[in-house]
């Protein structure tokens, strides 16, 4: 599971007012090279919740991203490279996503998050 995905997932447990972002419990992170595509990065930048992204990247062992970012940074190659790496190349292979309100764990196995709710959480 890449951080791009993490940035789009939110907890849907009944009664939870703010289920975003998930905290991450890291057991195994894998780095996988992905072709750099500046156009894609510029396109996706406005859709990324930046703070959640930076915090998640730090949890995954990558603290290099700036705390704040605005679109002017998209002209900087150095920024784009870091953005690319954090967003697309870090994979949570094993671990869990933790609901920020309830603490409920959603396991991540072989890179796939299991977001199924139990009957009483629906």
């Amino acid at each position, binding site marked *: 599971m890449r951080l791009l995905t993490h940035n789009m*997932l939110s907890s849907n447990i009944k009664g939870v007012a703010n289920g975003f972002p998930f905290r991450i419990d890291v057991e195994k992170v894998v780095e996988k090279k992905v072709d750099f595509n500046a156009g894609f990065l510029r396109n996706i930048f406005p859709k990324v919740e930046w703070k959640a992204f930076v915090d998640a990247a730090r949890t995954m062992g990558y603290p290099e991203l700036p705390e704040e970012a605005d679109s002017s940074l998209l002209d900087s190659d150095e920024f784009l490279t870091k953005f690319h790496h954090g967003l697309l190349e870090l994979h949570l292979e094993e671990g869990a996503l933790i609901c920020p309100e309830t603490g409920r764990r*959603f396991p991540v196995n072989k890179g796939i998050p299991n977001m199924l709710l139990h009957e009483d959480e629906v």
Partner: protein
Amino acid sequence: MTAAFSPTCQHLLTGRLKPQLQFLPPRAPASMRRLTFALASATTRGVEADAKDDGVVLKKGIAEFYDESSGVWEDIWGDHMHHGFYDPGSTVSVSDHRAAQIRMIEEALRFSGISEDPKKRPKSVVDVGCGIGGSSRYLARKFGAKCQGITLSPVQAQRANSLAAAQGLADKQVSFQVADALDQPFPDGQFDLVWSMESGEHMPDKTKFVNELARVAAPGGTIIIVTWCHRDLAPSEESLQPWEKELLNKICNSYYLPAWCSTADYVKLLQSLSLQDIKAADWSQNVAPFWPAVIRSALTWKGLTSMLRSGLKTIKGALAMPLMIEGYKKDLIKFAIITCRKPE
């Protein structure tokens, strides 16, 4: 919304297999016995408890059905798990199938009125009931969009991810997770295009299903539902005829489907959520050539051996194919498309 859809199909697990298949080593008989027991005990309790147990049993059944069948289906049909779109009355072979499946996607997009204009194309897509990701990968490539797929089947999610990586499709653009379409793990208004290609028939609660589709759609976004329905009821009718219900029950049993609804039911649900530009069409004529072709492919050496290798659930699914043909011929089963737009 009209009164509740007909109660959850009774699962008639009498295990009536054709004589020539009885030599099979009993695969997963234990889990089928558990399923039968769970359903039997469920019927002795209250209605609410019934509904919850049925829900759990159904989801598990769906996940297991696709965990088991995905491999052989992919083997025979490729990475799309939906019907192909044909010119009515044509005779087709399995080799035409892939092109027809692509055509189905394109026809659905065209019907929905989604813009080809690069500035207006969807940038984010959710594939609800994504199978092994065929639609997700296709839409991601077509629109250069980011696509999230959800499925109940861990095997499918795994396979979807592998295929994305193997196809060198910038696997950055597509991702798959195990999640429930009735409780999507996404915040509101996330997706420009909400895509449900032949997954609606698995949803036990159509109201909740449609609500979730609408919830995760972005303002101005498009919702496309392609699904199996039963015929619309006449104004004087309260429900389907007994023979019609019986036929649908048998099909439900084999494909892990909850109760069916009609195209008109979907339209009413979308209207109740104030969605706009609601359009519906009956594409039954365009998919009718599909089932005979599937049966022919199943009866080949490759088809038979693949089925025997996969398991009981897949075989039961295969045996239900003539029932689908009967349903279409008798104008009971409809292949429907329903699309709409979420207001800005």
